């Protein structure tokens, strides 16, 4: 890892060095992918086949959670930093100030190693998903295969361009700078594409689209462009920049606190300021992007929306409010402290009082919970579970107003900071200032006015107001800046900013920003993922593992804190290596460019021996406070709905509901029968079954007839239908009498009649626990294969017996025949009996289970976890492509090396 960050200027700039550095990145990623593939396949075939596995008894969900979140944080960092690195570089080119170019390089330096760590974490995550959640991962990767391939291509592209960007810094200077800038832009284009592709999978699990009822893909584009895809893309893009900026600022803060010279202090003070500026600048539009995402979630599923904002997860929003309010306070605090090092800024200290009052009131409104915790006495005093007056603060209208005003205030702080040491000299200065003040006041007025007005209009109109509020704030900011730039042109400078002369607590504020951003990302990620509750893919694929429950908020916040601490430990390793290389470089080359700084003047800063431990304690204290608040909110675990059990006292309505479920799922009845206008007509229409039952067989009442027709279907055949139905008491349905009776109850309600069927004690006794059944066998029951095919002595005789199918056919052939029944026809059987779409309607995972079961009957092993055996064609094919690519790069490297030699010789 250390070698990757070898500074580009260590050797003389050359194309060969740049290419060599880049190839190292490619080699690293190739080896990592190969290792991932081997480990994942090795573990999958070594561990027993299952839907869910755990490693060494460690909860699989928490393992995936921690690694996924860490991977995401590093990815956010490596995607966010290049965005502002290239902007800073561009500023350096336009202003011709070398310090910007140095800063851009300082930012980029943090990247090289962070890339490696991101990739390692991504590979671990992939292994965990394949090993711990084989079924879900199989389903997802089968559906999104094209996007996976695209992702791998993008990763290679990103690595090549990013490393090239870093290693060619010195090479592409001067007249070639524009090519370097282009590289920087390309890094961001690829990075953004990478983010968008990864978001596909995440958002699909939240708001699945493009699949039919059976879970088969109908439109890949619809699945990709699902309702929450774009909102999350935008939200994450902005958050990445804010996050990257805050981490870069934290890095600067640490370097500042450990700096030995005034020059170093000045440089890192400036870097911290730029980092925080970027972080807050990107943070300002974030609430709006989040609001859009929230809306999409509500629109996709009211249930998911309500559980996010009003239901069980509502309590976590108190924490979110606390964090966001804290971010606003800390950033203003930092700016105000920073004004202490700007000569002339004391003119604006008077504004701090009203700004602080506004921020505090905004924070208070923002943090007022919708669901208030109150004792019985307090509740009756309030007259309900929400307060008649404070309740007004709990709703979105108040929050929008509060956050807009806080944004406006923070913006104003920034503008005062900017003006700190300058006195406008243009003739219209007084007029300009008045207009600026009016614009801010007007925006505040619009925000407040609409905020209050929105309580008097219906919600569908109210929700539109947030757009006016945001619009007012954004345009006020734009107008303000548009006036400010010419206003300050040629302004008189009172004195230069005394970089480096800022109290240590300002650096702690920067560090706090980084901790809070990180924690906030962890928390919001948990909320976003948690509102799926017991679903893997919301509403479609249920989590059937023991970890399907929603944990207590207190537990979740502790895990978020642990992730945050691990992240900072890992990041500090990256930073430590970066600064170590710095020192090496300095020893080699002597100090680089100097940053303008004041020598030992009246500096507030008193250097101490160590400044790393206090920072670590500060980190622990901050995350502990957040987790502590997480313990204060109500705690409860929520479990997936229980499987219903039939008893003698089950009310008729519930009995019918259970029956309906059985008809749909376990019984597989709808393969031949229909209960709605559209449906299969191989058997009689079930809507009429109960009504006609009484007259079907003379001397037999309706209930007895229905019971017989389900348990002994061959005794009486409805005219016009062949003998093809298996008894419900035998496989595939394998029901007990109680279940059959609940189906009768359902049939009775379906016919519009009263439920008359009664469950007696004997029906339930008949339910016997069966031993573990092969998942493939179960699937064949569920999807009705056994209705026509006989296996191990059970099943229908419409189609050929399948007990020994493995002896004559390969697994691939069996799979092909399932998917395409018309592929060939077994001799002595009629073609076209098996429905063409039947096989396709079986989810992929279960299809593999079926093949595994059938092959297993003939003693042939077939791995049901996707078709991939350890040496499946696909992985090997991909590996070959990557290998050829590596060879190509090596060849290019060799050519470059030769040229280099020739050049040196010349």
């Amino acid at each position, binding site marked *: 890892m250390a070698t990757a960050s070898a500074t580009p200027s260590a050797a003389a700039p050359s194309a060969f060095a740049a290419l060599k550095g880049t190839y190292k990145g490619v080699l690293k990623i190739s080896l990592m992918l190969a290792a991932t593939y081997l480990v994942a396949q090795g573990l999958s075939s070594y561990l027993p086949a299952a839907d869910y596995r755990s490693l060494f008894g460690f909860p699989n969900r928490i393992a995936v959670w921690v690694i996924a979140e860490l991977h995401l944080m590093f990815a956010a960092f490596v995607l966010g930093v290049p965005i502002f690195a290239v902007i800073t570089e561009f500023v350096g080119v336009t202003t011709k100030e070398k310090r910007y170019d140095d800063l851009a390089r300082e930012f980029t330096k943090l990247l090289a190693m962070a890339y490696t760590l991101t990739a390692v974490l991504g590979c671990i995550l992939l292994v965990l998903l394949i090993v711990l959640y084989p079924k879900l991962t199989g389903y997802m990767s089968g559906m999104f295969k094209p996007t996976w391939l695209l992702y791998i291509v993008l990763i290679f592209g990103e690595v090549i361009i990013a490393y090239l960007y870093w290693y060619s810094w010195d090479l592409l200077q001067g007249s070639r700078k524009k090519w370097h800038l282009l590289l920087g832009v390309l890094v961001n284009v690829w990075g953004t594409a990478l983010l968008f592709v990864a978001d596909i999978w995440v958002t699909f699990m939240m708001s699945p689209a493009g699949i039919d009822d059976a879970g088969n893909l109908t439109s890949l584009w619809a699945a990709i462009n699902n309702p929450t895809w774009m909102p999350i893309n935008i939200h994450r893009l902005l958050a990445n920049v804010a996050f990257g900026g805050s981490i870069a600022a934290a890095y600067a803060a640490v370097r500042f606190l450990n700096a030995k010279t005034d020059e170093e202090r000045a440089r890192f003070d400036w870097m911290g300021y730029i980092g925080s500026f970027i972080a807050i600048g990107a943070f300002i539009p974030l609430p709006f992007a989040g609001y859009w995402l929230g809306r999409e979630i509500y629109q996709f*599923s*009211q*249930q998911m929306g*309500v559980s996010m904002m*009003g*239901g*069980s997860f*509502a*309590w976590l929003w108190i924490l979110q409010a606390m964090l966001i*309010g804290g971010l606003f*306070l800390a950033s*203003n*605090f930092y700016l105000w*402290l920073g004004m202490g090092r700007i000569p002339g800024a004391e003119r604006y*200290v008077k504004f*701090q*009082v009203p700004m*602080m009052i506004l*921020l*505090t009131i905004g924070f*208070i409104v923002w*943090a*007022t*919970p*919708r*669901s*208030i*915790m*109150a*004792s*019985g*006495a*307090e*509740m*009756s*005093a*309030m*007259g*309900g*579970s*929400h*307060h008649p*007056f*404070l309740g007004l603060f*709990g709703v979105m209208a108040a929050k929008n107003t509060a956050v807009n005003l806080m944004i406006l205030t923070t913006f104003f702080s920034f503008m005062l900071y900017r003006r700190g040491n300058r006195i406008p000299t243009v003739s219209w200065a007084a007029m300009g200032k008045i207009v600026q003040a009016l614009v801010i006041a007007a925006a505040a007025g619009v925000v407040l006015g609409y905020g209050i007005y929105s*309580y008097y209009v*219906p*919600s*569908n109109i109210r*929700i*539109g107001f947030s757009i006016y509020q945001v619009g007012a704030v954004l345009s006020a900011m734009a107008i303000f800046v548009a006036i400010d730039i010419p206003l300050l042109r040629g302004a008189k400078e009172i004195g230069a900013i005394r970089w480096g002369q800022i109290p240590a*607590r300002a650096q702690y504020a920067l560090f706090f920003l980084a901790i809070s951003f990180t924690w906030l990302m962890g928390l919001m990620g948990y909320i976003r993922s948690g509102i799926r509750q017991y679903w893997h893919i919301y509403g479609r694929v249920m989590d059937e593992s023991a970890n399907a429950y929603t944990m207590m908020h207190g537990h979740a916040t502790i895990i978020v804190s642990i992730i945050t601490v691990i992240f900072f430990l890992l990041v500090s390793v990256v930073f430590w290596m970066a600064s170590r290389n710095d020192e090496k470089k300095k020893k080699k080359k002597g100090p680089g460019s100097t940053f303008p700084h004041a020598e030992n003047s009246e500096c*507030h800063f008193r250097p101490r021996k160590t400044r790393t431990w206090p920072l670590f304690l500060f980190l622990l204290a901050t995350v502990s406070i957040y987790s502590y608040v997480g313990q204060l*909110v*109500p705690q409860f675990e*929520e479990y997936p*709905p229980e499987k219903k059990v039939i008893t003698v006292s089950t009310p008729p*309505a519930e009995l019918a*509901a259970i029956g309906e479920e059985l008809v749909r799922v376990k019984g597989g009845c709808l393969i031949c029968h229909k209960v709605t206008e559209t449906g299969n007509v191989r058997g009689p229409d079930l809507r009429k079954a109960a009504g006609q039952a009484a007259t079907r067989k003379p001397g037999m009442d309706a209930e007895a007839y229905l019971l017989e027709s389900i348990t002994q279907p061959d005794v009486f055949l409805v005219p016009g239908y062949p003998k093809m139905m298996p008894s419900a008491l035998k496989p595939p349905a394998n029901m007990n009498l109680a279940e059959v009776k609940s189906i009768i109850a359902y049939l009775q*309600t379906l016919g519009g009649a009263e439920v008359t069927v009664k469950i007696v004690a004997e029906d339930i006794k008949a339910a016997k626990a069966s031993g573990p059944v092969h998942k493939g066998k179960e699937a064949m029951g569920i999807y009705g294969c056994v209705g026509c095919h006989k296996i191990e002595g059970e099943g229908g005789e419409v189609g050929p017996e399948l007990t020994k199918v493995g002896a004559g056919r390969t697994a691939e052939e069996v799979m092909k025949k399932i998917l395409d029944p018309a592929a060939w026809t077994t001799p002595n059987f009629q073609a076209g009996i098996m429905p063409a779409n039947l096989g396709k309607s079986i989810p992929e995972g279960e299809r593999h289970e079926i093949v595994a079961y059938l092959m297993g009957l003939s003693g042939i092993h077939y791995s049901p976890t996707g078709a991939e055996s350890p040496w499946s064609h696909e992985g090997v094919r991909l590996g070959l492509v990557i290998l050829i690519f590596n060879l190509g790069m090596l060849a290019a490297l060799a050519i470059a090396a030769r040229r280099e030699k020739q050049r040196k010789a010349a």
Partner: protein
Amino acid sequence: MRRHTLYIAIMLWLAILAGLKFGVRPPMPASVLMIYMTLSTIAIILFAAADEARFQAFLAPLRAVFEGRAPKAVQLLVLAGIPLLAGWGAWLRTAPSWDAPFEPRVVHPEPPSTFNFHGKRIDTASLKNPLRAAHEKDPAQLEKLTAEGKTIYYQNCFFCHGDALAGDGHFANAFSPIPANFRDVGTISMLQESFVFWRVSTGGPGLPRAATPWLSAMPVWQNFLTEDEIWKAILYIYAGSGSTPRTWDEETKHEKH
């Protein structure tokens, strides 16, 4: 002025506490007061620390006490006062009280994805008011149905939810918490009709655990009313309280204009 910074801060803190505790009626619950005071404390300290000169002035009296430069009496007062305050806080937290425990109650519980209505399975996500859908273009018919809903409301709901639909019916004060106030912008106007239908049909017992079903006296109305009657009553509570149900379709339309 400057040398009184610390005292001004303390006075301000006490003033905020007094204002929140005695100035807000009905009194705010302790949990909210705690949030507000924590935020006020942080804001005051940050403000004091945001300017170097101000911060030094703020710290000066504290320094004087802890570095032993202040008068003995003041030192004694502070050094004895801090443990006493901490002790008082501990006593307040642990002293037994007769108050009922806190009820963490969510105002808008999440509806289940499906629920049973007269033995029929109802899918919450796709549920719409059939009466509103059928007669959207026929205001006269909708008005007639609303009028029928009003009768149903007065025969069943009025006793608790009140004449003005403000949650202040004759029986209202017998319940804790009191029945929902439909005129409050935070209640039905924030919700889709499907949510209201679920709440009415399954009543208190239908609430999820997070919404403390034992704290709702709402009957399971599907045992007493037909589907049509419930939908009519819902038409009335929206019309009568002057609110409209939340719909996402209209919003999208609204935005497109």
